């Protein structure tokens, strides 16, 4: 959302991963034939649940694991077999991994000293990094004398100090509480953009991926299910799994009845869907119709027309403050979720438990899923 336009700018590829597979102990396929390219300046997110292979892929980029098959290129150079200390890649670790025996200043200077730079240059760069993350006055403190948010900024400064070509972020905000996470997210993106470093980040939190990344790869069982900009992945998921993983979704099973260039109708048990655009399918094909809860409007009155509405009983109401989620039990027994914005201080649609309600939606609200 925040960085969406970036994806449209054509840039040279910085990172290229070609058919990388990682098999552990000869049996467990953690990463399965993954290929991807990341352009210079992009923030690329690997999103998936635990055990989906995202961390293994990141560790292979950093050099802590060697791929069983496939090659990794950074700026055209094959780095597959290079050890971590010879790659122009730095990583910000999940729990920061700050050196507890060194001060903030020494932590940031650690990588620069390994390069054997002259002292003035090290001083200058460390000061610059401290200013960047606004920790200049904490330079002499040890990591345990810092709060979680400050530790996170030290970790960022340390991984940026060597001016890496590629920055890896492993669950960058995972250790922070919710409130702090929201402010830190934007701060982090601002710093990364100020420095102009290319980024690959790993997260299980879809909100984090959406707010920070210019492109997202949704991973499952070691392969990419879908790669695209945040709004693409959310509004145009290519499969039931992706639709289900990113946000909430109601999926109706149906069959294509009418297949025209400008519209299709799909009959499901609950209702008839009129989709206002053509799809790649044919009459009689079984498809899924995905509908996000926030795109459904609930009313007490029966809507006009024959399409895109269904009737049900309110079985559950979950109040979130800004919006309320209603669970609607349809005649078929299917339960759908509808999210209504609370735009007045009394619950705007006036529905409560046990009421009969009509759910209806726009002809452009749903996505037809063929897989």
């Amino acid at each position, binding site marked *: 959302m925040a960085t969406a336009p970036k994806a449209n700018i054509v840039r040279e590829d910085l990172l290229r991963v070609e058919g990388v597979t990682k098999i552990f102990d000869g049996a467990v396929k953690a990463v399965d034939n993954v290929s991807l390219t990341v352009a210079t300046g992009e923030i690329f997110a690997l999103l998936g649940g635990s055990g989906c292979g995202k961390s293994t892929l990141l560790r292979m980029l950093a050099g*802590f694991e060697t791929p069983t098959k496939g090659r990794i290129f950074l700026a055209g150079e094959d780095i597959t077999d290079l050890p971590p*200390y010879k790659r122009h890649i730095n990583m910000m670790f999940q729990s920061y991994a700050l050196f507890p025996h060194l001060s903030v200043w020494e932590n940031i200077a650690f990588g620069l000293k390994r390069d054997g730079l002259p002292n003035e240059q090290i001083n200058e760069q460390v000061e610059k990094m401290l200013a960047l993350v606004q920790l200049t006055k904490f330079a002499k403190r*040890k990591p345990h004398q810092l709060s979680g948010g400050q530790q996170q900024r030290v970790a960022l400064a340390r991984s940026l100090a060597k001016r890496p070509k590629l920055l890896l972020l492993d669950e960058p905000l995972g250790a922070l509480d919710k409130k702090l996470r929201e402010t830190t997210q934007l701060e982090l993106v601002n710093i990364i953009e100020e420095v102009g470093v290319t980024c690959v980040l790993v997260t299980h939190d879809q909100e984090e991926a959406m707010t920070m990344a210019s492109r997202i790869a949704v991973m499952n069982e070691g392969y990419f299910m879908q790669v695209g900009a945040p709004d693409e992945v959310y509004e145009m998921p290519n499969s039931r799994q992706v639709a289900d993983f990113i946000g909430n979704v109601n999926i109706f099973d149906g069959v294509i009845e009418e297949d025209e260039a400008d519209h299709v109708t799909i009959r499901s048990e609950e209702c008839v869907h009129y989709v206002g655009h053509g799809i790649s399918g044919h009459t009689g094909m079984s498809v899924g119709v995905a509908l996000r809860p926030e795109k459904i409007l609930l009313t007490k009155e029966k809507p006009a027309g024959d399409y895109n509405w269904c009737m049900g009983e309110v079985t559950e109401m979950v109040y979130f403050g800004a919006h309320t989620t209603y669970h609607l039990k349809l005649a078929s027994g299917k339960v759908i979720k509808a999210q209504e914005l609370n735009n007045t201080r009394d619950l705007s649609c006036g529905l409560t438990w046990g009421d009969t309600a009509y759910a209806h939606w726009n002809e452009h609200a749903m996505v037809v899923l063929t897989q």
Partner: protein
Amino acid sequence: MKTDANLDLKSGAKPVLKPSEKLAVSPKMIKWFSQSWMIAVYIFLYMPIVTLVIFSFNDSQVATVWSHASLRWYAALMKDSDLISAVLLSLKIALLSALISVFFGTFTAFALNRYKRFPGRTLFSSMASTPLVMPDVIVGLSLLLMLVSLQHWLGYPERGLFTILLGHSLLGTAYATVVVTSRLREMDSKLDEAAMDLGCQPFQVFRLVTLPLLVPALVSAFLLTFTLSFDDVVLSSFLSGPGYSTMPMVIFSRARLGLNPTINAVATVTIAVVTIAVLASSFYTSHQERKRKRETAQAYSDTNK
């Protein structure tokens, strides 16, 4: 009695004291009992030591009969060159064997914890800890047999300082490995990865990150192996040669010939040194711990302002 105490503590919080009424034990009695039990344990543990210290200031020739206080045996200790050279030898052996043990123990622990699986790892791991469970007598005897045959075939080593050092280092390495291993296990391996990520080659990772963080464990391993060596009688007896008697050996042989009050004096000096060292180190650690906690709390209140 332990269960009684538990029962009573539980019911003590409530106004109705049913279980304790049944047992007819009041909380007061429990308190009295536990305190006297504690005192009894302390007497059992420390009475012998206190007796020893008191009798070291005894003027009598007979170690078990009190006449009047004097520093006579301390004066005798100063002139007892046998005993003093035994103490010096013990210190020398303890210092050297502790250093050797910590050195080898650290690398053994490192190989077992930080390397990828290598052939023979399980065997190596169990061999490293065998001396811990093997009776000292067996270790001493087998070392002696080996050294005797070596000397027979090669004319080397002569039994003495070197052979005692060898035995103590063997035992100490096993203990040091255990201490360092437990620290390495709880250390975040992400720190090693972070160091490598920032450009450290494997040995630099060890020197700049692992080793500094291991220092507390190295100190405890050193103190442990030092103490082990300093009070060892069994291995030393097997492995020493003429002219090389350690302090425990001298004390042991003199005690067998009849208690000599000089022994009380040397023991008292040892106790004093150990007590001061232990107290100082525990005060230092608890001070550090409190300071650290204060600073951590400070960091959070700073950001909440």
